[in-house]
């Protein structure tokens, strides 16, 4: 198995606030990992620091052997687009999407690679197969959709290109249980070969038994996974 993501000694934070404490973490090809932990314990920060979106960070992040981390203290977001183009797709928490675009336009935004842009019609179709409710909303403005539909659009955007690592941040946040289940089902149904997925979730029950590995996150450190297994 290939190692897709390898994080070593990652510390990150915002200004004087340190959120992540020397995290070591790795993701293998074909893996589906649940990142669990309460609000405010660094799940989103971990994902965002992979995307180079936090205030400062320090430590090594290797994506398929290529260093995308390093020490950095300003210019959040400056390298993000390059990381996205390497093949990391992040669905941010909440509705960080484009409210004034139609669903179709919004999905097209995800198609950043040349190939994806050329095939955007087919790919949109494929996303709509995954999230059938979007099909009839194709020309509706995203700002007018319901929460669940927006989440589908947001996740769908991440699926538009051939990313090999999907980081999905809190897909169930603020959604009715039934709808969040549907969103997660769609995610679990995605093919696994050659790709990996990390889902951050507060609600452990939603992921139980559906992921290959569950990693706890607590106070800026990883828990669970390493602790139990290695020592017992």
């Amino acid at each position, binding site marked *: 198995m290939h190692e897709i993501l390898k994080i070593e000694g990652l510390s990150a934070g915002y200004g004087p606030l340190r959120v992540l404490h020397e995290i070591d973490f790795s993701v293998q090809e074909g893996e589906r990992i649940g990142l669990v932990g309460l609000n405010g314990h660094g799940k989103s920060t971990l994902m965002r620091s992979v995307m180079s979106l936090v205030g400062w960070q320090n430590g090594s992040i290797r994506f398929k052997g290529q260093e995308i981390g390093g020490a950095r203290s300003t210019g959040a977001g400056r390298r993000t687009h390059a990381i996205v183009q390497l093949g990391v797709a992040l669905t*941010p928490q909440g509705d960080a*999407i484009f*409210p004034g675009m139609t669903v179709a336009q919004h999905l097209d935004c995800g198609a950043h690679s040349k190939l994806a842009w050329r095939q955007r019609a087919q790919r949109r179709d494929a996303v709509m197969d995954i999230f059938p409710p979007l099909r009839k909303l194709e020309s509706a403005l995203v700002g007018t959709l319901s929460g669940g539909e927006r989440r589908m659009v947001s996740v769908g955007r991440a699926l538009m290109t051939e990313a090999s690592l999907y980081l999905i941040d809190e897909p169930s946040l603020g959604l009715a249980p039934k709808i969040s289940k549907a969103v997660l089902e769609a995610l679990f149904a995605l093919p696994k070969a050659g790709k990996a997925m990390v889902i951050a979730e507060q609600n452990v029950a939603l992921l139980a038994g559906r992921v290959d590995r569950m990693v706890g996150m607590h106070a800026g450190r990883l828990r669970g996974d390493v602790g139990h297994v290695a020592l017992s």
Partner: protein
Amino acid sequence: MSTVTLIHGLNLAAIYGLMAIGISILWSSVGMINMAHGATFAASGYAAWQVSLIAQPLIAAWLGTGLDASIAMGATMIASGLGAGAIFGGLIFLLAYLPIHEKANFAVRSLIVTLAINLATVQLLLYFFGPRQRALPKIFGLGRTEILGIPIRNDQLGTIVATALLMLVVVIWLKRSRKGLEITAMMQNPEGAVLSGISVRWTALPVTMLTGALAGLAAILLSQTVFVSPTAGALPLIKGLTIALLGGLGSIPGAIMGAILIGFLEAIVGSISFLGQRYVLFSQFLFIITVLIIRPRGLGGLLDQTRESRNA
């Protein structure tokens, strides 16, 4: 309304529209109020004038003085105006966007930087070209054309047609092309845009260049009726700004509508004998202020609302 007034109004609307749309696009996508738009206008005028000095004898030697020559000259003028405006836009990107776009209070900061650029450009133009105004070659000729029995001055016709075409191209480009989609994405959510693999830094460059080019074109077109001077940009800037405001900053349809309204207002007030030209500016600003007090977001402004709600 007489036909003269109609044409005059359309002509003014075209030029104001070019300025206002540039300001509007730049505000909504990059989040800066470009006070150097007037400087872009003046600098492009001078660049085109400089090009015309070189190109005129060359074209005359090559094509003579026929229709070919005047078309070639016109194309050269428009191209040089667009080009100079785009280059100046790039300069604004380098000075007023790149170094400060990550700092706090970018909107006010960039406003100040562009003001400084405006101040400096006017003085530099004055220093290098002197106070004398300069004439650009008449790219549409001096005659008039009859359309549907209405005699229209060639420069007015040319301005209206060229602007309408260009605006159509810009609007379609923004709507259909990939770059346009990227710009829209950046307008609505810069972080979402980076997560879609769009570099905010480098998407801002084409935007500043595009709006600069629009100002450059406006300079060429307006210089068909008035002349190029270092301070020529001040009035188009103020009018463009207030029209963009009237249309609701960031809304392209709003800006176009605002330009048409203001253009016709100017033409009509100017043609009413007891009001006359001297009340034109007065009535325009009064109108804009009234509209804004009634509708604080201007005529359009939906986009800006979504922007606000995201920031909140």
